[in-house]
């Protein structure tokens, strides 16, 4: 084999390895996850975003991992086809986001009870209400600055956007209830939680995550769904309005 052929072969092999590595990393980081686009759903400087967190998910590979879902804009939350198994969504810049999270997973005390405090929302409050099932509230709507994650076993997960200083504990349903077992959940006990925050006046990608180490079966609970985009962490893309 001549020297030029050997050099070309070496270069081609090197490029193949580089391209393969980049593909694997990119695939691992974002996979084929869809991004739910809320940028077109904004009206009068505000947009409604709806998420849910479940004790399991409908994937074939990791069905026992806890997971968030994102609802299609304006869809019916009681229909499974309304929910997208992803943690990527986009919202317009300089916009008020009215966030609704339907918490179907049971309580798990956060590692740091400091995350019981609501931070970064408008008024530093959340409004939450427990439901036995869809349209069956267990009590009135509570507006509060804190959800004590330790003594009341009221927190299932958290929703946090550290880059925007938004830290919100997400309530869990009645501890004695049987949790939803069919994701995306549209039936079973849940907590309906609402809060509002502002997106910045510039575009960018803001990671969000759960601060409850909820990766059951992993060291300190921080593996699996905690480390995988599409489950308990993701990106909020702030796009031009």
């Amino acid at each position, binding site marked *: 084999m001549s020297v030029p052929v050997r050099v070309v072969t070496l270069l081609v092999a090197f490029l193949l390895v580089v391209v393969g590595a980049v593909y694997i990393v990119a695939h691992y980081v974002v996979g084929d996850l869809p991004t739910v686009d809320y940028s077109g759903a904004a009206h009068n400087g505000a947009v409604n975003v709806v998420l849910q967190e479940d*004790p399991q998910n409908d994937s074939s590979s990791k069905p026992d991992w*806890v997971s968030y879902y994102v609802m299609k804009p304006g869809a019916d939350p009681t229909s499974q086809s309304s929910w997208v198994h992803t943690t990527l969504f986009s919202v317009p810049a300089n916009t008020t986001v009215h966030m609704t999270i339907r918490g179907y*997973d*049971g309580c*798990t*005390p*956060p*590692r*740091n*009870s*400091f995350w*019981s*405090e609501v*931070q970064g929302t408008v008024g530093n409050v959340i409004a939450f209400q427990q439901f036995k099932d869809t349209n069956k509230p267990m009590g009135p709507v509570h507006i509060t*600055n*804190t959800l*004590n*994650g*330790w*003594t009341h076993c009221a927190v299932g997960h958290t929703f*946090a956007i*550290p*880059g925007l*200083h938004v*830290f919100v504990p997400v309530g869990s349903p009645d501890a004695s209830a049987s949790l939803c077992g069919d994701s995306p959940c549209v039936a079973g006990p849940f907590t309906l939680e609402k809060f509002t925050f502002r997106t910045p006046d510039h575009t960018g990608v803001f*990671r969000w*995550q759960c*601060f*409850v*180490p*909820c*990766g*059951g*079966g*992993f060291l*300190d*609970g*921080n593996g699996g769904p*905690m*480390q*995988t*985009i599409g489950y308990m*962490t993701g990106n909020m893309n702030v796009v031009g309005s």
Partner: protein
Amino acid sequence: MSHSTTTGSAPEARHGLRIFLIWLPLAIIADVLIWFVWYPHLPPGRMSDQAQGQQFDIAVMAVLAAPVLLFVWVYATYALVTWRRKAGDDEDATPIRGNTRVQATWITATAVIVLGLFVFGTVQLIVPAGAGAGEGPSPIWKPDTNRILQVQVIGQQWAFTYRYPQFGGMESTMLELPVGEQIQFNVTSLDVIHSFWPYLLGVKADANPGVNNVAFAKAQQLGRFVVRCNELCGIWHGAMFNYGRVVTPTTFVAWARSVEAREARLHILTALPPYALTYDPTVIPQLGQDIVKVAGITGAGGYYYPSESQSGDPGDPESP
């Protein structure tokens, strides 16, 4: 340094003197530029006493290193120009069989440099109370004052939070510091190993679970600084940063008391575990019982509470 030719008839040029005379002005110029032009702009700046000390150390090292580096370059260049092979000259040079003066000079100079740096480095580590590095749970180099603001740094995937035991043990996502006050950072983690790195303060200390890693600094300039994690700690390691602020003592006290009052009003202070130097993530204190590695639910074990070995000592200013 001499290099004989094979003829032996022509008088040998004084190469050593030539090299010295070329090297000396270059070294002086380089050191003057380093000290007066580069030094004020060297990282990490002068936002704290530790940062200023590190800036001084880097400047001293650069002043020492520049003449050495220039000597190597000057000698190599001189050798390439002067002793390059001439056309038709195929003979070997005269073998060098020892040169006591050169060897003694070399050994003496390198010994002075290395031992000098050893002494300088040791002094610069001890005098500024550890030079901003984590000294472990029992620091042997401490500032000579008892007026120390205690700040606990808690690493967790993927954020730093800060507790202030002298303000009711309140916790914050903001790192606020008073200018001119000695600060003791007590760095720990609730999960994996992180590293607390407020670069502009000249502080870097690993955050290990179950370990209190102590570092000292005194802020001396007002302004904002960034805190980064400097230990690969998971998928969002690169995004694990937040901002701190150095403010006047009056502003700091007002801020700390307002956070303490707010967290008391919201019952956050009672929701937090009692302040401790480390936390055991297997117990929820409010429940009064051990919950170890909860299995069978979505959440993994992980809560925090002072372990029994962390008993408070009233005589210890670091003790809660």
